[in-house]
C-alpha cells in the first residue's frame, strides 16, 4: 500500500510540475501565435510535430541530451512538458482568435491599451478554451507519465513495468488503477471548472 501511495505521489508531482511549466510556456506562446498568422502557424506546426513522436521514442531521444536528458525524473518531466504543450498552445490560439471582432473592437474603441484588452477581454473570453486545453494536457500527461518509468522517471509506471516483467497482474493493476483514477478525477474537476467559466 505504501508503495502504491508513494508511486501515486511521484506520479502526481511529475504531472503537476510538467503541466504547470507547459502552461507557463504554452499560454504566452499561444497568445503570441494568435496575433501572428504566419509565425504563429509555424510555431503550431512545431508543437504539432512533437506530439506525433511516440512517447517511448521521445523519452529515448531525450536521454542523450545534456542538461535536460539522462535517466530519471527530470527527463520524464521534460518529455511531458513537450507533450502537454500542444493542447495548451492550440486551445489558447483558438480561444483568443474566437473572441468576437465586435467585442474586441468595442474594447479598443473604449480606450483599452493592448495589455488591458488582453487581460480584461481576450483572456477571460478565451479562458474556457484554455482550461479545456489544460484538461486535455493533464489527462494525457497522467497517461504518458506511466511510460516515464521506462527511463527511471518513477511514478505509477514503475509498478506497471515491474508487474509486466514479473507477469503479475495484481502489480500491473496496482499501477494502472490509480493512474486511471487520477486521470478521471483530473478530467471531472477540470470539466467542472470549464463549465463554470462558460457564460
Amino acid at each position: 500500500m505504501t508503495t502504491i501511495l508513494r508511486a501515486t505521489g511521484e506520479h502526481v508531482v511529475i504531472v503537476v510540475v510538467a503541466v504547470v511549466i507547459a502552461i507557463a510556456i504554452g499560454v504566452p506562446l499561444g497568445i503570441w501565435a494568435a496575433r501572428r498568422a504566419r509565425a504563429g502557424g509555424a510555431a503550431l506546426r512545431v508543437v504539432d510535430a512533437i506530439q506525433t513522436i511516440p512517447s517511448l521514442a521521445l523519452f529515448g531521444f531525450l536521454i542523450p541530451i545534456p542538461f535536460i536528458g539522462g535517466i530519471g525524473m527530470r527527463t520524464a518531466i521534460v518529455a511531458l512538458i513537450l507533450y502537454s504543450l500542444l493542447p495548451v498552445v492550440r486551445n489558447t490560439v483558438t480561444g483568443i482568435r474566437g473572441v468576437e471582432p465586435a467585442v474586441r473592437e468595442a474594447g479598443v474603441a473604449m480606450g483599452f491599451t493592448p495589455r488591458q484588452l488582453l487581460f480584461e477581454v481576450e483572456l477571460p473570453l478565451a479562458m474556457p478554451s484554455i482550461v479545456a486545453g489544460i484538461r486535455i494536457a493533464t489527462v494525457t500527461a497522467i497517461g504518458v507519465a506511466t511510460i516515464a518509468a521506462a527511463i527511471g522517471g518513477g511514478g505509477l509506471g514503475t509498478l506497471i513495468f515491474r508487474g509486466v516483467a514479473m507477469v503479475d497482474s495484481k502489480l500491473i493493476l496496482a499501477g494502472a488503477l490509480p493512474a486511471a483514477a487520477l486521470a478521471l478525477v483530473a478530467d471531472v474537476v477540470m470539466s467542472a471548472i470549464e463549465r463554470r467559466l462558460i457564460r
Partner: protein
Amino acid sequence: MPASIEFRGVSVAGILHDLDLRIGAGEAVAFIGRSGAGKTTSLRLINGLATPTRGDVIIDGAAVTDFIPLRRRTGYIIQGSGLFPHRTVYENVATLPRLLKWDETKTREEATKLLDRLGLPAAQFAGRYPRSLSGGEQQRVGIARAIVARPGILLCDEPFGALDPIVRRELQDSFTAIREERNATIVFVTHDLAEAMRVAERVVVFDGGRIVADTPARELPRHDAPAVRALVAAASLPA
C-alpha cells in the same frame, strides 16, 4: 465638453477621396449613403480605428497623436452592441468609469441612473449577462456604456440596424431624448433616411467615397443631388 471634428483632405486608399468636412462642437450629424460609400470608414477615422493614407483628422483644433485618451472621451455605439459577454450589464456600463478611475460610488450612481433612464431598471438588469437580454435591451446597454462617462464625441455606426422596426423606433426616441441631456458632438452613420432625419440636425451624404451633399436634415427631401434623390426615392412608400 463637446469637441469639434475636422477632416482635411483625408483619403483612405480605395475608399475615401480627399474628404473635407468640419463638424462643430455639439453638432449632431448623420452620415448617410449606400453600403461602401465611405461613411463607416469616415466615422472610424475619428477615433483612429481607421488610418488615413493622406490628410489629417483634427479634433478640437489639433491632429491626434495618441488615440487612447481620445477614445476614453469618445463614445462608440455599434450594430450588435459589442457588449462584453463575460461581464454583467452593470460591469459593462462601468467599464469606462473604471478605466478613468472614477470612485465606485459615483460609477454606481451614474450607471444606475442611466440604466433606469434607458428603461432597464438597474435593480432588475444590473446583474444580468448580455446573453440573457433581447437585441433591443443589449443595444440600450450599449448606449449606456457609450455615454456613461459623458463623452465629448459620440460615434454611432448603424447602431439600430439589426433591430425590428418597432424596437428601432423606440430606441431612436430614447436616443434623441438622451441626446438633448448630454452635451456631445454626434456622428451617426445610417443608411436609413428617416433615421438620419430623426437623430441629426445635419446630414452628410456619401457616394463613392466622396461627399455629395451636406445639408440641414429638414432640407434633405428637397435636395437635388442625384445620390440624395435616389435615397429619397428608395425611402418613400409605394403609392
